[in-house]
């Protein structure tokens, strides 16, 4: 009797609590959404409610809140005039129950967050993520919270620090709290916060301290003031190292682009002496070949999509090289030793190629999906941020240079090329098929330009007239380096890149360009043969 009643009561209780929790959740969800959608409601307060649900121990609530915050961030949350709240998509979802909902009225448009709201939303989703089961998600979230420390909710972060088992993540969160703790009125807290912030120098740390030192209460306290000033000085030192490295790096990456675009020309113009104004168009052909490869891989091999850039390397090289050899066969071979006519003819070819591509692809910029591994970058040291696409360009430029150098110096083709360019008649007397060598050399030069096109898809915009901008730069590099010297091309592109990027931060991009061009004029006056002259007998 007793046990039976107990059992009955327990079951009843269990049923009741179970039912009430789920019912409570659904009504609560609708209430939160209604508060958010109210026309006179405070969206920020409503968002705090979502975050509260998101950091609660109920995993279901947590997932729901994350979803809602994401929907608001993506401006997909629609407050319908009927009172229903839906998440846009196919099919649209009822935001409270996450079940399929009817399509919303055409008149109801989604909520578009303002910048302030977007900041809050970003912190909100980071705060919710701090309670995620995945370590990486939590680490990302912690970094995000640290970046926007001014907006964090201390109660939630304290809770997260308590629960965090990973010491790295916990220390990032503690640092964020310290940056925020600068605002405390207690001197000991302040000093501790300053020390903690100075430990990890970064731009946000500097901003925090600099804003802090501007306050009157800090200025009147000599001890705190001294501490914060020495902390700022310390951060500045490490930041200025970072800045110097960044200038060197961007010079290097600019040099990489120059080297890539000039390498082909250093063979065509430098070794063969052909003034090829269509050089930029071979770059463009390389870029469009990459585009075709990208499209093809996207349609037929989506699994290997990210590798398209590597597939494009041989494809672009071959296509550009073939185009180059055709140009040599049909136009240039009739014009050797007639520089003016070559110049005019190649200019005409350049315009014809631009128009042809315009007809085939249209004149707009073509769209490239950057492979995942080239997106974004890495903070190497405080103040020194490296983007992957530039690293890729530098490395590829170096590899391509080494390969070209090897071909010219070590292979038979290279030997014949050098022989033909140095003393053509003698080479022919010794049985070198000069015409064939010319064609191959021209093809090699065009192919190298095509490779530059592949790399440039990740850095510059790709359109039919993209090549024209690079021709001048390429000629500049080759002439300065000394016609015919591959090493000269490397040195001059490195010099031009570094000088340009060294001037730009101080006097602007326009002044940098002017300075570089003037420098070239001066050098060419003193050394018309370029920096590295090749000794030839013509």
């Amino acid at each position, binding site marked *: 009797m007793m046990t039976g009643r107990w059992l009955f009561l327990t079951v009843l209780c269990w049923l009741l609590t179970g039912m009430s929790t789920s019912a409570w959740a659904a009504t609560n969800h609708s209430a939160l959404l209604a508060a958010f959608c109210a026309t006179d409601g405070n969206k920020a307060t409503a968002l705090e409610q979502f975050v509260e649900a998101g950091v609660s121990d109920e995993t279901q609530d947590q997932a729901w809140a994350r979803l809602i915050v994401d929907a608001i961030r993506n401006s997909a949350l629609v407050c319908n005039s009927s009172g229903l709240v839906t998440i846009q998509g196919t099919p649209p979802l009822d935001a409270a129950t996450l079940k399929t909902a009817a399509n919303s009225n055409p008149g109801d448009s989604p909520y578009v967050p303002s*910048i302030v709201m977007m900041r809050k939303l970003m912190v909100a989703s980071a705060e919710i993520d701090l309670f995620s089961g995945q370590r990486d998600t939590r680490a990302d979230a912690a970094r995000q919270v640290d970046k926007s420390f001014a907006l964090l909710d201390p109660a939630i972060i304290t809770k997260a620090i308590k629960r965090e088992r990973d010491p790295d993540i916990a220390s990032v969160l503690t640092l964020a709290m310290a940056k925020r703790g600068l605002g405390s009125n207690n001197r000991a807290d302040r000093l501790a916060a300053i020390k903690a912030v100075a430990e990890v120098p970064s731009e946000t740390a500097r901003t925090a301290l600099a804003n802090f030192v501007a306050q009157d209460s800090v200025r009147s306290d000599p001890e705190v003031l001294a501490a914060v000033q020495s902390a700022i000085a310390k951060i500045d030192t490490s930041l200025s190292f970072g800045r110097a490295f960044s200038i060197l790096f961007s010079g290097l990456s600019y040099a990489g682009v120059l080297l890539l675009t000039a390498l082909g020309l250093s063979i065509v113009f430098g070794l063969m002496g052909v003034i090829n104004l269509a050089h930029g168009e071979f770059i463009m052909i390389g870029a469009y070949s990459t585009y075709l490869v990208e499209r093809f891989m996207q349609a037929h091999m989506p699994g290997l999509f990210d590798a398209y850039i590597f597939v494009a390397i041989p494809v672009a090289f071959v296509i550009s090289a073939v185009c180059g050899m055709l140009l040599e066969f049909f136009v240039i071979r009739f014009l050797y030793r007639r520089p003016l006519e070559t110049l005019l003819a190649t200019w005409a070819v350049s315009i014809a190629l631009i128009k042809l591509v315009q007809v085939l692809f249209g004149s707009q910029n073509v769209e490239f999906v950057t492979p995942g591994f080239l997106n974004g970058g890495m903070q190497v040291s405080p103040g020194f941020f490296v983007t992957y696409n530039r690293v890729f360009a530098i490395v590829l430029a170096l590899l391509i240079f080494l390969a070209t150098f090897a071909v010219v110096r070590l292979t038979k083709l290279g030997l014949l090329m050098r022989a033909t360019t140095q003393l053509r008649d003698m080479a022919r007397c010794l049985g070198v098929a000069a015409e064939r060598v010319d064609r191959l050399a021209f093809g090699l030069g065009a192919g190298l330009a095509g490779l530059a096109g592949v790399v440039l898809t990740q850095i510059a915009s790709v359109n039919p007239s993209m090549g024209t901008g690079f021709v001048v730069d390429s000629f500049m590099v080759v002439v300065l380096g000394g016609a015919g010297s591959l090493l000269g091309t490397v040195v001059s592109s490195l010099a031009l890149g570094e000088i340009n990027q060294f001037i730009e931060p101080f006097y602007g991009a326009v002044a940098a360009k002017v300075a570089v061009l003037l420098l070239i004029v001066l050098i060419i006056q003193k050394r018309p043969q370029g920096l590295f002259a090749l000794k030839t007998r013509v």
Partner: protein
Amino acid sequence: MKRRTFLSAVGSGLVTAAGTALPKPALAAGSTEPIKLGLLFSQSGTMANNESLLKDTALMTIDQVNAKGGVLGRQVQGVVVDPASDWPMYAQLSKQLIQRDKCAALFGCWTSVSRKSVLPVVEANDSLLFYPLHFEGEEQSKNVVYLNSPPSSSVLPAIDYLMGDQGGNAKRFYMIGSDYVWPRTINKMLKGYFKTKNIPDSALRERYVPFGQSNFQTIVREIKDFAAQPGGQAIVVMTVVGDSIPAMFKEAVNQGIRATDIPILGLDVVDSDLEGLDTKPLVGHLSCWCYFQNVDTPQNTQFKSDWKNYVTAHGLKHRPDMVIDPMVSTNLGINLWAQAVTKAKSTGTDAVRKALAGQSMVDPAGYTVKMDPSSQYLWRGDMIGSINAKQGFDILWKSKDIVKPVPYSPFIGKA
């Protein structure tokens, strides 16, 4: 003898031809010949991409006007020429359109420099140029009808928004532009404006890059540096044009800048500039125009479907689902011109100009736009758009009503 009769026949023929040709403008109302409109948009060269959109919008609008019976009982005909993005060519072809083709009015130009080159021609011939772009202002001619906003009613409201609570209380401004008249004038005006808002010079930075610059490493690094200095939230006011827009956005994304850290207000960014970009990391950056295609009005739905049908029916290479502000402005211009001609019962410049004053209509953005009688600028609404993940703009803010255009900014010359 034979030869003489032939000559005299030719001679008298010429005289009669001249005789009928001369009084033609006076006959306008009774004639059945089509009224000609000159369309001065480049279809080749650097501007081809953008201006050919406007050319086709103009032709579509002319078709629509004709479908409703034309103007004054006559059909309207668009005369298309191609100035090839070559500024002096705009002047030459506008002269040809007015003098040889006897066009009643001209619609055309995108860049300010092309408008400046046409200006003396329309003034000398007393014709009308309808100009569909937002620009730097500081100009007012009775021979130009300005269909889009001067900066005072488009740029300044956006700056105000960003300086307000909703926009994140921007206190410091990094101005980066391509090196030519439009960015320099805008920034000059902004500097004057900031002075009236008590923003110190140390909170401003102004940089220019050459046309077509694609390497923004240094600039973006400097922006990050600038944003890390104390003194409040920093924003970027970007007036770079053309290919520099995607290049700048790409570099900002790669160096980790998001709209939540440093918002970029791109004054010349339209949907077509976002075409080649992955806009997910760009969400939240801003632009300001009188119209964005996401605006939800019946007029806009109509306009967008008209454009879609026109593009598919004529097999054009444009994207059928993309409409930008200057296209809407071109459409408004032709419709307002048609209204004015109907009211004036004449296509003469003077009569049309008089009738144009005060003309109004509902534009696709949902505002009742109105022609200012004294300045010949169009009163239009103003909108701030925020880039979304779908390569377009969501509307973040819009003005309650149309805004008075102020051709000459009071803020220029203050800094």
